């Protein structure tokens, strides 16, 4: 049986200029429409105000370019409920989950609260370029003043709504189908082709070209409905004619470009390959970044003059598909970035292994002295390292160094330095000469990669109780005994700065109960919560006032530094060697 018409909805639809002074007219028009349907007073008042608030938002938040576009207002009166839709062209916003009244002294923020309080439901549907606020109010018997017969009106609108629902459904189901296919982005080209072929079916298009943005200046074909359309690159930021092409115009203006067989199309525009083409170019932006352009259309003349190439809902579907494809492009990019991260994680792992292998598993022993060492990296791998070479029963060479830089390269230079020092036994008793030699050997390699090494070499003769120190731009050596603490810093440039440079050395006696500290600048540069550095003065003070065997001093200093930087955390490698005796 055919519907009698008595339960069919009545509808009103009109465009409202994007200007606050027209809001009142819109509210009056809807008011009048609702009165004609027999709407009760209470609902009328509520709808008047909710509509005003919705229109205010749609107009106030429209960006300048969208101010030429109308706000669309629809009111649909059904037997059991009333629906008001306001479609805006603002960037849209996230509808809050919970809307509370703002503080009494706040001069704004009551609009959404009013809408929510006045209507039974408010749903904000966000889409590319436009958003629709759907307000609903159910109609009880009181809502209808009298058993008014809803009017039969505007069949065109209803068929439009049906059309929209159908195409939304098709788009959504197609997109869900792709989302459920987990491996789909492995081949982006194939995926894009499949997705856009489906889109062409949904919107009755005959051809498409998707171009992917490259370095924000080129758009290159990712996929096209036919190979003839696969026409190289468009350099839309170059000073050439490419900028006049339709796809370039869309990318530059960030607007949808519609065209038909009468539109002027540049002679070299790839879209000319489709004779008498008509359609649109949709620029795809995600978070303000151009991801690409989708050109899609039909061939030949339109069926009748004035009939749009695509209906609004078809254009919406095109936008939704293009945005979806853009998200997949981002997905692929993130997967690639993830792979790169995995590689650098692997690199760090290798570097870490090298660094650990350089550190002594056990410190050698030196008669009459105690030794302790500590090395802590800020990141996975640092450039700090220390070494102790036992030369004979009574002598040893202590090495502490900081390779500038991190990662595999720094770890490799540390390994090379260690090897070179160990391979030059004839100079191990002369730190200054040894540093000069090492500098000559490593200079080319270091300067070739803009790296350098600070290092300190300390030769200790336990029997003679004396020490010789040579320094290549490294922190001073600290020595404390009963008479106080002093720092030794013989001259010398870091390794890798100049090819031929001289190093000085200093020889001192080691008195009874002396304490010697070799360290890297991570120690003095440890920072507390107030931004203060630990500094050499504190370090000297600590050494002056702390007695005990090397192992105890190591724990003590470690605790002292950890305490100091408790709230700021480790920001550089920290390494030190302690000799007591």
């Amino acid at each position, binding site marked *: 049986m055919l519907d009698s018409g008595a339960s069919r909805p009545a509808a009103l639809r009109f465009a409202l200029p994007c200007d606050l002074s027209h*809001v*009142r007219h819109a509210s009056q028009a809807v008011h009048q429409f609702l009165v004609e349907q027999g709407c009760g007073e209470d609902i009328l008042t509520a709808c008047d105000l909710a509509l005003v608030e919705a229109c205010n938002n749609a107009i106030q938040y429209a960006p300048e370019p969208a101010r030429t576009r109308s706000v669309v207002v629809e009111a649909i009166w059904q037997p059991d409920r009333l629906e008001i839709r306001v479609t805006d062209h603002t960037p849209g916003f996230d509808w809050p989950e919970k809307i509370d009244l703002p503080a*009494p002294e706040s001069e704004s923020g009551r609009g959404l*609260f*009013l809408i929510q*309080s006045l209507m039974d439901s408010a749903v904000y549907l966000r889409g590319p370029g436009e958003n629709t606020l759907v307000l609903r109010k159910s109609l009880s018997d009181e809502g209808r003043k009298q058993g008014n017969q809803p009017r039969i009106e505007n069949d065109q609108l209803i068929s439009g709504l049906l059309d929209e629902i159908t195409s939304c459904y098709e788009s959504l189901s197609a997109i869900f189908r792709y989302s459920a296919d987990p491996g789909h982005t492995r081949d982006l080209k194939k995926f894009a082709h499949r997705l856009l072929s489906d889109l062409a079916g949904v919107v009755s298009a005959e051809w498409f070209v998707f171009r992917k943005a490259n370095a924000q200046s080129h758009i290159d074909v990712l996929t096209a409905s036919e190979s003839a359309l696969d026409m190289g690159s468009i350099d839309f930021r170059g000073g050439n004619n490419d900028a006049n092409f339709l796809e370039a115009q869309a990318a530059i203006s960030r607007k949808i470009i519609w065209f038909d067989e009468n539109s002027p199309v540049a002679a070299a525009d790839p879209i000319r390959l489709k004779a008498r083409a008509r359609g649109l170019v949709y620029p795809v932006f995600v978070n303000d970044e151009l991801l690409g352009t989708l050109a899609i259309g039909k061939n030949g003349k339109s069926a009748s003059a004035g009939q749009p190439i695509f209906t609004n809902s078809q254009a919406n579907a095109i936008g939704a598909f293009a945005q979806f494809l853009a998200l997949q492009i981002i997905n692929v990019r993130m997967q690639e970035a993830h792979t790169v991260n995995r590689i650098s994680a692997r690199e760090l792992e290798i570097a870490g292994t090298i660094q650990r292998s350089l550190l002594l598993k056990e410190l050698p022993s030196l008669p009459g002295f105690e030794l302790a060492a500590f090395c802590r990296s800020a990141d996975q791998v640092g450039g700090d390292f220390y070494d102790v070479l036992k030369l004979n029963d009574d002598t040893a060479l202590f090495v502490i160094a900081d390779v500038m830089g991190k990662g595999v390269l720094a770890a490799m230079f540390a390994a090379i330095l260690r090897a070179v020092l160990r391979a030059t036994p004839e100079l191990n008793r002369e730190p200054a000469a040894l540093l000069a030699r090492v500098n000559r050997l490593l200079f080319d390699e270091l300067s070739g990669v803009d790296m350098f090494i600070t290092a300190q070499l300390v030769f200790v003769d336990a029997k003679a109780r004396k020490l010789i120190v040579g320094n290549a731009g490294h922190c001073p050596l600290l020595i404390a005994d009963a008479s106080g603490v002093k720092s030794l810093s013989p001259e010398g440039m870091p390794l890798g700065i100049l090819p031929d440079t001289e190093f000085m050395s200093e020889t001192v006696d080691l008195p009874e109960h002396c304490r010697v500290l070799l360290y890297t600048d991570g120690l003095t540069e440890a920072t507390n919560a107030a931004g203060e550095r630990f500094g050499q003065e504190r370090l000297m003070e600590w050494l002056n006032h702390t007695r005990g065997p090397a192992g105890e001093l190591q724990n003590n200093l470690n605790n002292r530094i950890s305490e100091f930087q408790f709230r700021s955390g480790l920001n550089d490698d920290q390494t030190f060697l302690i000799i007591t005796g």
Partner: protein
Amino acid sequence: MKIQSNGHTLRASGIAELSAANANSVRDETRQAFGQGHRNIEVDLSQTAAVDSCGLGALVALHKTAAAHGGVLRLINPTPPVQQILELTRMHRIFEVIKE
């Protein structure tokens, strides 16, 4: 809109509606007229058919202006739809609402 001065009090009346379209100008014109010696602001809402959230914002702003000078904002004879919105947003507790 008409603005009259009466001793410590400034009264704005003849406002057909107080909405996004005119809220800022109602606020600014009233503030401009608010001079030395004025403490209170009265807004006559007896001819105001509608108020929206922007209109409420303007009233809050005028309330602050009066309070800053040791005075109050009084709303005079709001029409039923306006009264309804004041109650809905609990603003009737903030402002003095007077039925003359």
